[in-house]
């Protein structure tokens, strides 16, 4: 490279940087699209204004458009909130190992690859927030992480909702049923009865730790030694950390509800294959369900009675529910398909929309930041070329906090939606131990 060429290149780089800065600083307006706020009725020929990562205005065609706004022509498009996937394994992370059945101190954030190309699958599917979970091969496999799928992350903090490892940034993954059973037992349970016993004992131990901490008050000398497992479990007992509980059969589901009643933790039921059989009990417990659409029943004994009607059964019973991908069990790129099949089997359109957005936001305690297009919320949205629940509709663009993170029209990114040569080079799946 000679120096005569360097100068214009530098100038070009500066201009690029300036325009990127401008995109951050100037409001972005999507004009003329059908807006689906989820929190309210659809708006045809709408105006969505986002600025500095937040939604600053949403309304009809008369909505004021700020000066200096970058305007995107949304005519013929549909805009809805970014999708919330309340259970996924993108990011290549893992959880506890075979040394024990319960690992409350193990954090998936310590194992996630922020540059994993599986995140591109999720962005291409319109997913903007995801609960990344360790597996179900344990009674308690570790701490989960709530991630915003921002562009070009280099550190795990770049993906965490508050960009920080301080405080609580995820839930805890628990499981019952057959995935966590090991013939012969040992440190693992071999039966359902022992599974519940081991979980119960962990909660009792945490209650004792909690009491010691309370009794000690401000007296450092009386406090028990730091115990990362117990500290986490106390967060669970105090309702600060949500339990994301993998469970399939109707009797395993009721075991979860019983444990919740006994210890008072907050819980989201995951998969819930027999939800149709115990929907009333789930509703009465006031517990939300994160469910999955699978194209055929079975695959293992405890999912032999799974039905695509679970969503409709929960809606009828008055229980909150949303869909998840469990990626790689189902593919993030076709996530909208899950709620579409829910509708096919009786879920109302409004609930189907919520099940991909607001319901997931509530499960992650993020309902004040994401899940709907409302002023003050994060500017996480997707631009579609048609109805969200049509097979022919494509996610054209995905935006997180006012920044575009996926664009189907960009030849470099198109493959994230379709696949192809060397698109997913390091794709990880955990098929053997999930679902």
């Amino acid at each position: 490279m000679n120096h005569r060429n360097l100068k214009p290149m530098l100038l070009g780089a500066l201009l690029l940087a300036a325009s990127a800065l401008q995109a951050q600083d100037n409001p972005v307006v999507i004009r003329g699209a059908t807006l689906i706020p989820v929190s309210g009725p659809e708006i045809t020929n709408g105006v969505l204004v986002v600025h500095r990562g937040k939604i600053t205005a949403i309304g009809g065609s008369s909505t004021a458009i700020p000066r200096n706004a970058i305007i995107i022509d949304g005519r013929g498009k549909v805009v809805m909130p970014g999708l919330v996937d309340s259970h996924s394994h993108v990011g290549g992370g893992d959880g506890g190992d075979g040394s024990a059945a319960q690992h409350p101190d193990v954090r998936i954030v310590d194992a996630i690859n922020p540059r994993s190309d599986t995140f591109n699958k999720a962005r291409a599917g319109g997913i903007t927030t995801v609960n990344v979970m360790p597996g179900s091969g344990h009674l308690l496999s570790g701490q989960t992480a709530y991630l915003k799928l921002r562009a070009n992350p280099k550190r795990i903090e770049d993906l965490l909702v508050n960009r920080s490892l301080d405080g609580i940034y995820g839930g805890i993954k628990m499981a019952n049923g057959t995935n966590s059973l090991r013939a012969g037992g040992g440190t693992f349970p071999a039966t359902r009865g022992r599974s519940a016993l081991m979980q119960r004992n962990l909660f009792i131990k945490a209650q004792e730790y909690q009491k010691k901490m309370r009794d000690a008050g401000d007296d450092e000398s009386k406090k028990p030694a730091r115990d990362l497992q117990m500290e986490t479990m106390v967060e669970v007992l105090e309702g600060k950390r949500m339990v994301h509980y993998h469970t399939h059969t109707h009797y395993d589901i009721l075991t979860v509800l019983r444990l919740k009643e006994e210890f008072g933790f907050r819980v989201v039921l995951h998969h819930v294959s027999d939800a149709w059989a115990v929907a009333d009990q789930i509703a009465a417990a006031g517990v939300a369900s994160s469910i999955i659409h699978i194209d055929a029943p079975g695959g293992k004994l405890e999912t032999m009675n799974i039905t695509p009607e679970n969503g409709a059964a929960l809606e009828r019973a008055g229980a909150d529910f949303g869909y998840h991908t469990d990626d790689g069990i189902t593919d993030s790129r076709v996530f909208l398909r899950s709620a579409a099949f829910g509708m096919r089997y009786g879920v109302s359109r409004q609930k189907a929309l919520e099940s991909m957005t607001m319901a997931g936001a509530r499960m992650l305690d993020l309902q004040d930041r994401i899940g709907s297009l409302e002023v003050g919320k994060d500017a996480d949205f997707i631009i579609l070329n048609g109805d969200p629940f049509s097979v022919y509709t494509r996610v054209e663009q995905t935006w997180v906090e006012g920044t575009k993170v996926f664009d189907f029209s960009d030849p470099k990114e198109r493959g994230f939606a379709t696949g192809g040569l060397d698109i997913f080079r390091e794709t990880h799946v955990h098929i053997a131990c999930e679902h």
Partner: protein
Amino acid sequence: MKKLLSFGILLLASGMPLLAQTYAIRGETVHTMAGESIKDGVVLVKDGKIERVGPASRVSIPSGYAVTTAKVVTPGFIDAHTVVGLAGYLNQNHDQDQLDRSSAFQPELRAIDAYNPREVLVEHLRVHGVTTINTGHGPGALASGQTMIVKTSGVTLQEALVDSVYSVAFTLGSSVSSNFTNPGSRSRMVAMLRAELLKAQEYANKETKTRDLRMEILGDVLSGKVKAMITAHRATEIQSALRLQREFGFDLVLDGASEAYLMLEEIKAAKVTVIVHPTMMRPVGEAGNATMELAAILHKNGIPFVFQSGYEGYVPKTRVVHFEAAVAAANGLPIDAALRALTIQAATFLGIQDRVGSLAVGKDADLALFNGDPFEYTTHTTAVMINGKWVSTQAR
């Protein structure tokens, strides 16, 4: 190779009175797959066969014909490659007969000896409108066994059977070496297959011989009586399959073929049909370079293709072939091309186009009824008929 038991269905079905069974199906759109689709069309069915097809203005419904209406009527869909019936939904040892791990090379294993026509997964395909399947031994062994063609109805094999041996299922790729220690490499796989085919050539030329079931079925592959269905995802394996085909002249079908887009000219020159991997197949392992656009790419390049539900080791324990075709249609494949691949193209591919694949006079009355575009997520299959009998009338 057909061992048709064509007399079967009506007589076998529980000693039914030998009265004419007559139905009229009236559809707002009837995709006959034999010429243009018909607006407000009528299909008359008598004694298991299609009696007449045409617009309602020209085909009057005779008295005594039970009338069923639908928004959209198509021929029953054809799944060109599955393992259901050998693979069961419980996924326990007792219901997984698609792969015998005792040896990597067993082309003599017959699908008819393992098929369970009452398997829940077979019913699952049937009620969604899939009426004919090529099913049998799965991928994962150098030669896992044979496949056959059945209808998705019937409580015994005889009632279901269309063709007892359609293909031998071969696999080239790392899934074989992960299931078996021998062969343990790609080149060894090809060497083993070549050696077995050479043996079969010699066997075929012998004057006197003791019966050898393996050599007999490989002889049928070499003579073209039975297809060689080779599952091959990577371009390396696709090339090996094409090379073996040139050497031995068998009738090759390429299965899966994730990287077929890298080999378009070679595949086209070999005049080979591709059974496209399920569109929503996970892009992992050997299929890591799969694209949802493969069917569209093959269509654009004039390479014949059909769809499959394939094999799944976990969940979904089976895919549904038109759900996969639908996503291909959303990824660049024209809708009518997707419909053709599911019907008349698949029937021709399986050599049973005289019986199924289109709504034409004299063909088996296999129909699927829908309350909208069959590919839309929210459309229901409202009824399914096989051999002139309703096998499902509940919306799915």
